[in-house]
């Protein structure tokens, strides 16, 4: 039990997917203009990554590994994740249009989020079983949400500051993200 909780905390904070593993930077920088939008994206990512890591784990454990097709895992995972996001989108559109509208463009955007694939591959690399994979996926997505909401909050403050002209726009966001990354390094000294 303790090790499962540890997996969630490790993947969310210590090995933060964005600030420590540098995955999913694209949407991290692109969508973090508004806190609300980034929170929506965060929720969508939690949803998709948790399901994706579950499916990828099952697929690996019961099809790829027994047949000795370890080397094909990247391609299979890409295929499955892309299809999965589509299915989730259709499912949400039908069953809860409100959530579908709130997530909007972010749902399809997640298909191209390398964090999803990254988690699936990390799970395999670490030899996680099904439950561990799901928890690791969930933790990673929570870490992503924390990071993007924090950056969005910082950016909303930056927006009102008098930034030197050459640093306006992307440069100051990258600098902020780098400082956040340094701050998150502090978690690596957590001891359990």
């Amino acid at each position, binding site marked *: 039990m303790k090790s499962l909780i540890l997996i969630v905390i490790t993947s969310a904070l210590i090995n933060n997917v964005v600030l420590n593993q540098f995955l999913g930077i694209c949407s991290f920088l692109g969508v973090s203009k508004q806190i609300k939008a980034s929170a929506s994206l965060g929720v969508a990512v939690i949803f998709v990554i948790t399901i994706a890591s579950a499916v990828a784990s099952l697929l690996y454990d019961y099809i790829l590994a027994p047949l000795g097709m370890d080397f094909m895992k990247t391609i299979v995972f890409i295929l499955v994740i892309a299809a999965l996001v589509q299915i989730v989108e*259709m499912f949400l*559109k039908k069953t809860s249009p409100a959530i579908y509208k709130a997530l909007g463009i972010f749902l399809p955007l997640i298909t191209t989020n390398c964090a999803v694939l990254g988690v699936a591959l990390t799970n395999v690399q670490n030899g996680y079983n099904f439950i561990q994979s799901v928890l690791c996926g969930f933790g990673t997505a929570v870490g992503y949400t924390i990071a993007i909401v924090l950056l969005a909050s910082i950016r909303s403050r930056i927006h009102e500051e008098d930034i030197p002209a050459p640093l306006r726009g992307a440069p100051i966001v990258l600098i902020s993200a780098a400082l956040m990354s340094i701050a998150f390094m502090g978690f690596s000294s957590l001891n359990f």
Partner: protein
Amino acid sequence: MIILLTTLVITIVGIVVGYGLVYTGKKFYVEVDERETAVRECLPGNNCGACGFAGCDAMAAAIVSGQAPVNGCPVGGAPVAAKVAEIMGTTAGDVERKVAFVQCKGTCDVTHNQGNYVGIQDCRSAVLAGIPVTECGFGCLGFGSCVTACPHDAIHVINGVAVVNRMKCVGCGLCAKACPRGLIDLVPADKHVFVQCSNRDKGPLVKKVCTAGCIGCGMCQRQCEHDAIHVDNNLARITYENCIQCGKCAEKCPAKVITLPFVRNKPEASV
């Protein structure tokens, strides 16, 4: 051998996933009104929000569901309204093209700044800070919140006052929303008589702060034969439904605050 097996397995996975998608697609199919897509394609697509909806997609949905009029897009104007009406099977009615107009004439040579505002160079910030940037409490601040708001590069601050480029203006009204002093009004594009002042103070007070302000003398109201200009709260305002653009009010205005900026060189254009 492993290559064959891999190909086989990947193909099977692909087929399963593909059929899964088709099945879910059918099962969770949501009816989308064809007209919505068609209407959406007619709209300008710059998502300015001037119609009052969240963007062109939301506007298209509102038109189809009957919540918005077919001529609800102020940017597209009559041509777009006609196309949308055709899709919806109704008639568009007349859409008046409107352009923004800045109701202030307080350039740097007729009025002056007051105090020394050094905060964020933005009109709304200045107003929020409560610092009287301009001597006139109603006039253009000149920091250009409207310029930032304009997606069409149609408004610029020239000599301390925002000026609309009527050729580029599409009448979306975003600048009017951005102006903290409410100086910008949407006026019919074919009209060219304007009261270029927003100061509601009494005459002597206006004169003190600006040599180009409306003093509320009522001369224009007396000149007008069509009941189209009225002084209300010490400020003249034109009712465009009645105005025939004769320009008599502008001729008699002692403060020269009623302007005919677009027909100055061709008087034959006015009636």
